[in-house]
């Protein structure tokens, strides 16, 4: 029978989503939530202030108001999201005397009906005593305005280090730039929501819109002072890294449920979502030096991460950028300085790629700047500096060890698929003709890290009807886990995929789990399913042997029929249903991968730039993404498409903007330029598979790859389109205004 693995199986998840829609937190009609009260937050309208007073008396008298909470009423200790951060920068779930960003929750109002909360919130009067505001991380790094005076610094993580003055000795050509990797609204289509109900047995049942039920346990336990939690993640409408664990608002919802002894629900608005769920935000000072014949000798990147008002995972991400700073290049000397500082803006979350897109953006933009400096084709400079193909681990100057790679092949594949030489000819002819619409060709080669090592749990249960249930500690929110995991379990058992169900996101049904993030699910969760499947088959073989009074070694599993029988005599046998019997058959195991895997690829973006208006149109996007063995190419392609769109969006149009006083200027989807169908072409994908030796599937992560390559490819293409006019750099997003201004400045 041909293997189901590697085939384009259509998703088993789809019919439900297509006919009645998923069941997201806000859709829950669980009887335990009948009569639930609704929570509404009053949020700060200023970026930095002391709370002189909070008057809730009028709100308390508004229709339907049951209770009103401020920080003091909750008795929840402020939390530090990671132990490595500056200890003085703990975050209270509701503002504790000081607000530090617009959108920070100050008051929680509990009402009988949902709409009553919005009405009552209008009556809360907060008297703000303004404090000086710092929005720019470079200014924050000067420590003149402090967000946490008791910390004595704005540095949340990392440290300042003196650069090596000898790093660029012996270089004939050196380029130096400041790059801005802008803040973005993560903007999953489903906003955050939470529902909590204290159960009669003293437990708390919590539904979260989260990328992992288990990853929310610790912070909720700490906040509630109870270990007895049952956390459930129903369908989740996208996460993109920013729905990890429990949010400050989730903590308030659960604590209020605990205090009230009643079911409480909350769902934020889109405005609340974009005010509080942001990612990226780095200022990178880059220097690259080498020889005039295109050999790079040294590279330095000084990363200043904008952590926002309280250090969350975003404050840690400059370290992920550091790990991947040299990218695919064999550069003898690499120096990375990384730290993050707090500013009066939204706390930074992880966003698709989480630190690795920033690394790729820096090195890929800089190498093109270097190519322009020495007058060499950007593809050729890359060729001369790529790490050659390797099958043994490769250690970089920053100490990261890549598993396996063939970067030159990826680059040549994408250039060929793009028709690079023909594109250059077309560009030359448009330049010679002085066309208004100029062609730009941008390249990005990349390597990233996925899964970061770790363990994942899987359990497989066969029922007496021969169907199976896979339990996983990973947590889907669009990635098609059910289909991929069912394919893996089906492959070696012969149980058809339509008879394999998936259970996830429930701390009562699944004992441990790392959720879904960092492109970990298939390689860790999928490998756990594979390993558990093998254990299950062995267990079943033993049982079937007993039933058949045969030697287990003599039994074979006919995966076409889903039946064990003695080799050579198929008449007497046992089906999965018979083997499982009334008691069923279940096996569980944890799969451990000692370290991360390193997917790589190469992207080419083609743009047309209107030299009179600065308007950019992305006309083609060609991608080679090597994530190792593909279990389901249909799903892998979908992940690549989505990633490319988000990466291109960062280069073309998306940016979360604050003014100098910390007022958000893009606080909803009318103002935040979320990329739409019209700004994008269909993508041209080229397959490449280099299996990793790190796990039995040979799979690396694919969830973030597209995003990582696409941003610099598109940015490089825009700069390339107008390079002949003297333009050497344009910041992202490459809006018409920025492109037009760059053209005007270059022509001066």
């Amino acid at each position, binding site marked *: 029978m041909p293997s189901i693995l590697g085939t384009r199986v259509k998703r088993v998840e789809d019919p439900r989503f297509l006919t009645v829609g998923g069941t997201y937190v806000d859709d829950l009609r669980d009887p335990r939530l009948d009569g639930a009260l609704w929570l509404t937050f009053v949020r700060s309208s200023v970026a930095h202030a002391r709370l002189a007073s909070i008057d809730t008396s009028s709100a308390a008298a508004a229709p339907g108001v049951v209770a009103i909470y401020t920080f003091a009423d909750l008795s929840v200790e402020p939390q530090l999201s990671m132990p490595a951060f500056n200890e003085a920068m703990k975050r209270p779930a509701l503002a504790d005397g000081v607000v530090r960003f617009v959108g920070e929750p100050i008051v929680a109002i509990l009402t009988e009906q949902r709409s009553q909360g919005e009405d009552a919130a209008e009556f809360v009067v907060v008297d703000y005593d303004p404090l000086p505001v710092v929005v720019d991380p470079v200014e924050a790094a000067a420590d003149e305005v402090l967000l946490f005076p008791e910390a004595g610094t704005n540095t949340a993580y990392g440290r300042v280090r003196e650069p090596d003055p000898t790093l660029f000795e012996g270089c004939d050509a050196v380029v130096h730039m400041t790059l801005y990797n802008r803040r973005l609204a993560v903007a999953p289509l489903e906003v955050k929501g939470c529902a909590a109900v204290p159960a009669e047995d003293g437990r708390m049942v919590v539904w979260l819109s989260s990328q992992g039920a288990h990853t929310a346990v610790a912070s909720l336990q700490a906040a509630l002072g109870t270990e007895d939690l049952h956390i459930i993640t129903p369908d989740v409408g996208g996460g993109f890294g920013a729905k990890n664990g429990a949010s400050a608002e989730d903590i308030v919802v659960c604590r209020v449920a605990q205090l009230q002894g009643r079911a409480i629900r909350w769902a934020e608005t889109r405005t609340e979502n974009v005010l509080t769920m942001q990612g990226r935000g780095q200022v990178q000072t880059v220097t690259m030096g080498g020889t005039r014949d295109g050999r790079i000798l040294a590279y330095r990147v000084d990363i200043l991460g904008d952590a926002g008002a309280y250090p969350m995972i975003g404050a840690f991400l400059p370290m992920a950028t550091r790990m991947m700073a040299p990218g695919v290049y064999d550069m003898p000397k690499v120096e990375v300085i990384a730290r993050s500082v707090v500013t009066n803006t939204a706390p930074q979350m992880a966003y698709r790629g989480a630190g690795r897109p920033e690394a790729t953006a820096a090195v890929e933009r800089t190498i093109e700047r270097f190519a322009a400096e020495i007058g060499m084709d950007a593809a050729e400079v890359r060729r001369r500096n790529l790490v050659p193909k390797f099958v043994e681990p490769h250690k970089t100057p920053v100490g990261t060890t890549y598993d396996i790679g063939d970067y030159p092949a990826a680059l040549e594949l994408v250039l060929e698929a793009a028709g690079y030489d023909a594109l250059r000819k077309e560009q030359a002819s448009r330049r010679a003709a002085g066309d208004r619409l100029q062609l730009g060709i941008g390249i990005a080669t990349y390597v990233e890290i996925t899964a970061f090592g770790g363990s994942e749990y899987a359990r497989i249960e066969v029922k007496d009807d021969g169907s199976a249930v896979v339990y996983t500690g990973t947590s889907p929110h669009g990635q098609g886990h059910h289909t991929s995991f069912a394919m893996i379990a089906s492959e070696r058992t012969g149980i058809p995929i339509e008879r394999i169900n998936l259970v996830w996101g429930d701390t009562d049904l699944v004992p441990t789990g790392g959720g879904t993030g960092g492109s970990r699910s298939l390689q860790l969760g999928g490998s756990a399913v594979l390993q558990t499947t093998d254990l299950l088959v062995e267990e079943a073989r033993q049982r079937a042997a007993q039933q058949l009074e045969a030697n287990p070694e003599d039994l074979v599993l006919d995966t076409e029929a889903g039946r064990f029988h003695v080799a050579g005599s198929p008449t007497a046998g046992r089906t999965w249903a018979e083997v499982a019997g009334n008691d069923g058959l279940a096996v569980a195991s944890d799969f451990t991968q000692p370290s991360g895997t390193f997917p790589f690829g190469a992207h080419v973006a083609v743009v047309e730039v209107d030299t009179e208006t600065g308007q950019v149109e992305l006309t083609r996007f060609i991608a080679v993404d090597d994530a190792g063995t593909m279990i389901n190419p249909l799903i892998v392609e*979908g992940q690549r498409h989505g990633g490319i769109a988000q990466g291109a969006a960062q280069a073309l149009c998306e940016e979360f903007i604050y003014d100098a006083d910390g007022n958000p200027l893009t606080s909803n989807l009318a103002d935040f330029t979320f990329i739409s169908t019209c700004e994008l072409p269909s993508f041209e994908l080229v397959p490449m598979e280099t299996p990793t030796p790190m796990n039995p599937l040979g799979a690396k992560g694919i969830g973030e790859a597209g995003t990582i390559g696409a941003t610099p490819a598109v940015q490089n293409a825009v700069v390339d389109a107008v390079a002949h006019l003297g333009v050497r750099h344009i910041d992202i997003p490459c809006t018409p205004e920025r492109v037009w201004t760059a053209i005007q400045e270059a022509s001066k």
Partner: protein
Amino acid sequence: MKVTLTINGARHSHDVEPRTLLVHFIRDNVGLTGTNIGCDTSSCGACTVHLDGEAVKSCTILAAQVDGRELRTIEGLAAADGTLHPMQQAFHENHGLQCGFCTPGMVMAAVSLLDDVPHPTEREVREGLEGNLCRCTGYHNIVKAVMAAGGSK
């Protein structure tokens, strides 16, 4: 005030506040949660339904404004025997959905688009769906699905 609507062929009457949005009527009063709310500025299209056969964003209309009229939501698109509508089938075949949150609105908008332009070009599909946002798919397979459903190449 009392608002009566025919939704997917069934009549629904509810007493609601005059300010009730159509999408809240559909979700909270009628209990059809396939229609989603993804924004507060009528930007995302997750709440798209058919009002007398035309796609509308149900967050931009008061329930009271459409009293007595006929609605179709995602729950009413497949045939009574469960057979998927050709657009639903095309989304399935072409992996046109991931997390599923934009999907009901996207499918309803796409059905309406093909009513107006039966065999659209890629550009027409892209322009026709500009008001429906998706964060997962990069739109690639959505566009492909709509083209397939429209018999376009």
